[in-house]
């Protein structure tokens, strides 16, 4: 199938995939979920406040005990929202109140925490990822084959799986995480400034350094990770080839070399990682050291303030120390956020590439129903090109009457497959029109059009499902009788019945294995299920060995009855059977006519038939071996059929 996309005349400007543009698009995506995001953030705000209140209560508790034991210690700052114990109450009363309040706060926090994590999962996994995946998948299916030819299967699958997940990470690990950091820093700072602005400033002095170190680290480590991924890809490739090429490796006794090659790649990955490890291992100790310096400042300066009685020991110093620890863990996440941004941007690009890819062919909105198709196909001055400079088809015109068998001949790259793919409108011609029963394809409903055309490729994909379900692919509601009828026409009924579970036999990697000829016949049955008026056969015997080729030809003989059929063919027997042969050369229709007519005129067709060395050889062989047959008195002489138009299968009389 074609490898490059046509460039429509009015091509939209290519989408902008700069980091800035991608970030804006991701933010817009996040905005669609703004209420859920706000709810999640609100929960986080509540959680932080409650946590702080609990921490404060612990500090108050320490001060309360110290004051009760030693009257010279200042009385605790009892929180205004908490009922204070009466002055004459026993000392334990105050502690009971505090302990109870801590527990209640903790319980509230755990409920909220639960709500937070479920809410976040709901937002990301349940909404965003499902929506994103469905959109990517839906789009993927409508893209032209070009996309599937250009991209490896693994890469396409990743766009719908891990890339969609990474894009999601932009919402919860970047946007939400940044907001959480901002909120928590604000809440903490407000609390700390309330106790002592000077001490807050002193403690937070090292924070900018932490920030710088984090950002620097993320920047330093990223190229190393990129390189590592490349080396890893190389390693996996080396491994994959050792497995896929195991026949070659074993056949040439190359096990040692394969192992040696893998060893080199393996060591390269490990060596490069060891370099990363040094940077990674150095990161957290330096971050921790900066935090510890903040702690020493707090203990020195704050300790002195506590001695002077400027701040309470518990609710001041102890709580400060606790907050500082939480602070530094927040800062630590900066490196993670930076990493997530990078990952999300890379993946976003791959996801948006799919979502932005133009759908080249769409059903017209005002399409009239197709009705009964007679099968008359007309090409009117059709030109088509993948790239502007190179025409894949140029000014092709012909008309095919219903029920005709048309063979298409030509060298590789002459435009045979392109011509075929214009009929089910996999592409639209750049110039000219393709008509079905006199109506331009572009005015017809796309799905109905394609369903009235049966297609058989060189190699046909069968789904891992039952034989019956594979035949009924085009119409899942087909009755068993319909399925069997299609199989009978395709000469597949007999071998299907011999399978272990007949029509219910599973196919695919886990099921029965079919021969090439059997697979082809199933594909023919699948194409016939909808009883299409038009049949397109793209060299259906190319991938089967000659021993089984006749099975397919048998099947085709019946399949083409009463249908307009286009067949790409090399075999003379097929070419001779065709009502008409279209000969293509570099995208141009250079000759048309039946075999006999074409052989009578000079041109590429006759030249091609004549230079088929194999045919020459085998013809000589036929002539050589005819003699011994004819002289054998008892053996029945086998005479080649002499009729002008032998049956397709051509076999024994």
């Amino acid at each position, binding site marked *: 199938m074609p490898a490059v996309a046509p460039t429509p005349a009015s091509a939209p400007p290519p989408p902008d995939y700069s980091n800035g543009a991608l970030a804006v698009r991701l933010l817009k995506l996040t905005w669609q979920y703004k209420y859920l995001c706000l709810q999640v953030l609100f929960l986080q705000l509540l959680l932080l406040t409650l946590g702080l209140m609990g921490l404060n209560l612990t500090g108050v508790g320490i001060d309360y*005990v110290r004051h009760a034991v030693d009257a010279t210690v200042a009385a605790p700052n009892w929180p205004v929202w908490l009922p204070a114990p009466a002055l004459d109450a026993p000392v334990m009363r105050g502690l009971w109140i505090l302990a109870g309040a801590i527990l209640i706060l903790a319980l509230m926090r755990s409920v909220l925490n639960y709500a937070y994590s479920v809410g976040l999962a709901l937002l990301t996994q349940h909404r965003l990822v499902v929506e994103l995946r469905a959109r990517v998948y839906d789009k993927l299916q409508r893209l032209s084959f070009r996309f599937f030819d250009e991209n490896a299967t693994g890469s396409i699958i990743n766009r719908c799986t891990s890339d969609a997940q990474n894009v999601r990470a932009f919402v919860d690990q970047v946007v939400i995480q940044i907001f959480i950091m901002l909120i928590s820093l604000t809440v903490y700072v407000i609390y700390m400034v309330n106790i002592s602005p000077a001490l807050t400033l002193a403690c937070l002095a090292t924070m900018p350094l932490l920030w710088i170190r984090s950002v620097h680290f993320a920047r330093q480590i990223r190229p190393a990770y990129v390189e590592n991924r490349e080396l890893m890809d190389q390693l996996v490739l080396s491994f994959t080839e050792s497995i896929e090429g195991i026949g070659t490796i074993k056949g040439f006794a190359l096990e040692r070399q394969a192992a040696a090659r893998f060893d080199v790649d393996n060591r390269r990955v490990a060596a490069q990682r060891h370099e990363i490890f040094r940077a990674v291992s150095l990161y957290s100790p330096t971050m921790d050291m900066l935090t510890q310096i903040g702690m020493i400042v707090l203990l020195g300066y704050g300790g002195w303030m*506590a001695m002077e009685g400027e701040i309470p020991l518990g609710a001041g110093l102890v709580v400060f120390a606790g907050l500082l620890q939480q602070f530094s863990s927040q800062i630590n996440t900066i490196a993670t956020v930076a990493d997530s941004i990078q990952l999300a941007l890379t993946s976003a690009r791959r996801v948006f590439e799919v979502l932005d890819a133009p759908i080249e062919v769409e059903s017209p909105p005002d399409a009239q129903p197709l009705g009964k198709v007679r099968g008359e196909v007309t090409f009117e001055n059709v030109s088509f090109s993948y790239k502007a400079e190179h025409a894949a088809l140029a000014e092709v015109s012909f008309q095919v009457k219903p029920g005709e068998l048309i063979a298409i001949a030509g060298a590789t790259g002459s435009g045979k497959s392109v011509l075929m793919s214009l009929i089910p409108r996999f592409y639209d011609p750049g110039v000219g029109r393709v008509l079905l029963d006199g109506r331009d394809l572009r005015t017809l409903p796309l799905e109905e059009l394609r369903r009235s055309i049966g297609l058989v490729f060189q190699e046909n994909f069968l*789904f891992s*499902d039952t034989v019956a379900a594979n035949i009924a692919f085009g119409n899942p509601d087909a009755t068993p009788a319909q399925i069997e009828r299609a199989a009978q026409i395709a000469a597949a009924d007999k071998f299907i019945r011999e399978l272990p579970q007949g029509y219910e036999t599973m196919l695919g990697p886990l099921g029965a294995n079919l021969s090439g000829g059997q697979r082809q016949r199933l594909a023919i049955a699948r194409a016939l299920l909808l009883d299409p008026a038009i049949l397109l056969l793209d060299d259906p015997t190319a991938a089967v060995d000659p021993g089984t080729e006749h099975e397919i030809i048998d099947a085709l003989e019946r399949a083409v009855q009463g249908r307009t059929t286009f067949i790409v063919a090399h075999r003379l027997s097929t070419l001779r059977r065709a009502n008409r042969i279209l000969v293509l050369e570099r995208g141009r229709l250079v000759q048309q006519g039946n075999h006999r007519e074409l052989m009578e005129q000079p041109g590429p067709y006759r030249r091609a038939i004549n230079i088929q060395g194999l045919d020459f050889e085998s013809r000589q062989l036929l002539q050589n071996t005819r003699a011994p047959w004819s002289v054998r008195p008892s053996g029945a002489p086998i005479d080649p059929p002499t009729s002008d138009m032998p049956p397709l299968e051509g*076999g024994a009389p």
Partner: protein
Amino acid sequence: MSFDLEWLRELFHRPPKPHPTVRHEYSLARGAPRGDRDEDDPHELSRTLNLAILRRLFRYTKPYAKKRNRLFVLVTIRSMQLPLLAWGVGAIIRGPVAGHNLHGLEWALIAYFALACFTDWTLYYRQLYALELGENVVRDLRMYLLEHLLTLPLSYFHRTKVGRVISRMTSDIEAVRLGVQNFLFVGLVQCGQMLSACVLMAMYSWKLFLVVLLTAPPAWALDRYFRGRLSHATRMMQESFSRVTASLAETVAGIRVTQSFGREAVNAGIFRRLAHDHSLYNLNFARQSGLFIPLLEVNSQFFISTVLLAGGYCAFHPQWNMPAGDLIVFFFLANQFFGPITVLGNQFAQALTALAGAERLFRMLDTPPEWQDTPDAQPLPPLQGRVEFRQVNFGYDPARPVLHNFSFVAEPGQTIALVGHTGSGKTSIINLLAKFYQAQSGEILFDGHEIKGVTSFSLRKQMGLVLQQSFLFTGTVADNIRLPRPTATDEEVMAVLRRLDCLDLIAALPQGLQTKVGEKGRGLSAGQQQLVCFARAMLADPRILILDEATSAIDTMTEARLQSALNRLLEGRTSFVVAHRLSTIRNASQVLVLDHGRLIERGTHNELLAQGGVYAGLYRQFASIAEGEEGPQP
């Protein structure tokens, strides 16, 4: 503006029970349930920490014992340092600060600083060694895996999906790496940290420590309860994800069929259900862990309030002899005790993934080869090239024999053409010749040496194979040709091509011999790939040549060129050809006609035609298709 309150309802839902019809349906054709016979069925994998696997992983650290032992020392030191630092903060506040001792505070801060430096130094090496050890172990595992796979007979690869083998190398080994690097040693430090926090607390006040112990059973019970649920949730999540991936893979592979039948909408519906289904499992996982971690936190807050109560009570009653300042120390140590529980809880899922990966990996490493060269197998001496099959019986499944009492002799230098329908046993003969499989009975002799008595390596060194699907490795064309003899010079490679009379075809490539070959031969046409394989076999200069002729659509001109190359390749070697080309069959010294695993006719092309038997019929059929029963016009 309407707030979306769906999540509020979701909060108190029971774990989702995905719709039964959705659960196993991921095939795109009609959505029939698909039998899951994958040996990776996660149900078979153990659900808890499997000590045998851990022990085995530990054994792989043996070559790095020095690093590993240092690491354990560092882990031990580090598990004491963190609680000590926390204790230090508490002790400084409780001691010099509470006691208004400015001078003492200075000294305490200096000591604290020194301890902090030491801690970070330890951290650096702890991390570095853990990362290096993990990578080294994993590097070895990767190598072991490949080496093991290379010892397995070909039948294993015919049975096993490539994707599964590759995911051992990628996802499973990576999971093991992360497990060793992140979980194992971090986990050990966390455990040690809890332990030393306990010791410090007990030293301070064993009475308050008893209160801590009170909170341990609920934490343990919570952990135990959620451990099972989380690992179950993880497994369900992974399973549903593999259904999503499988469905996607089919979509991509079958896109042409889908588009030509206009089935996009049906498929999109199936996929949306699968993706939605997967999100329910994700949600279930979030719900479980969202319950687990907050509950652990409640537990630690419960501890703090209890300490406050008990500590306060002691402080108020002097007969208990506990100063109020001890409360401060306990408050800081509590973090050291409860922090690790949360971290360990978080890491548990990752540890399970790592162990599951290790288990799958070990299972593959432990796959015994179905058969191996016998221990007394001798290297095969240089061959003349006489090959004999004596009464050979063979079946891939012994219950369903493919070859029956098969006997023939190939004299040195003969070309043997194998002819017959698909499934008649041609490929089986090739598989037996190359010792890819072993016959159930009968003898295969090379110059009189029984195949079972010779090493596979020495046999295949004298054998050249050109398989139906020519496999090219990434690299240059020259690299691919000199595969059997990497030391061959460019001149030798060119000489080989010249002998094949195909040098011009390769020279016509963009960079000639140095043209890059992409994955799966991308960049070369089918004919060029076939030619490279011929050259490869020619360079190996084997005594015995095995050739499974490709049938793919190589255009007629190239086919004619390859035919002459092929004839040169066959010269002077004992060759076995699964023949599809008429000329090969015609030139063969012997044609063996197979039918359902039996040798039904044997002789030269002309003899067999003269017999007018099965071969003559086959040949006529074949010739008529190729020739169209009519010669070209002049």
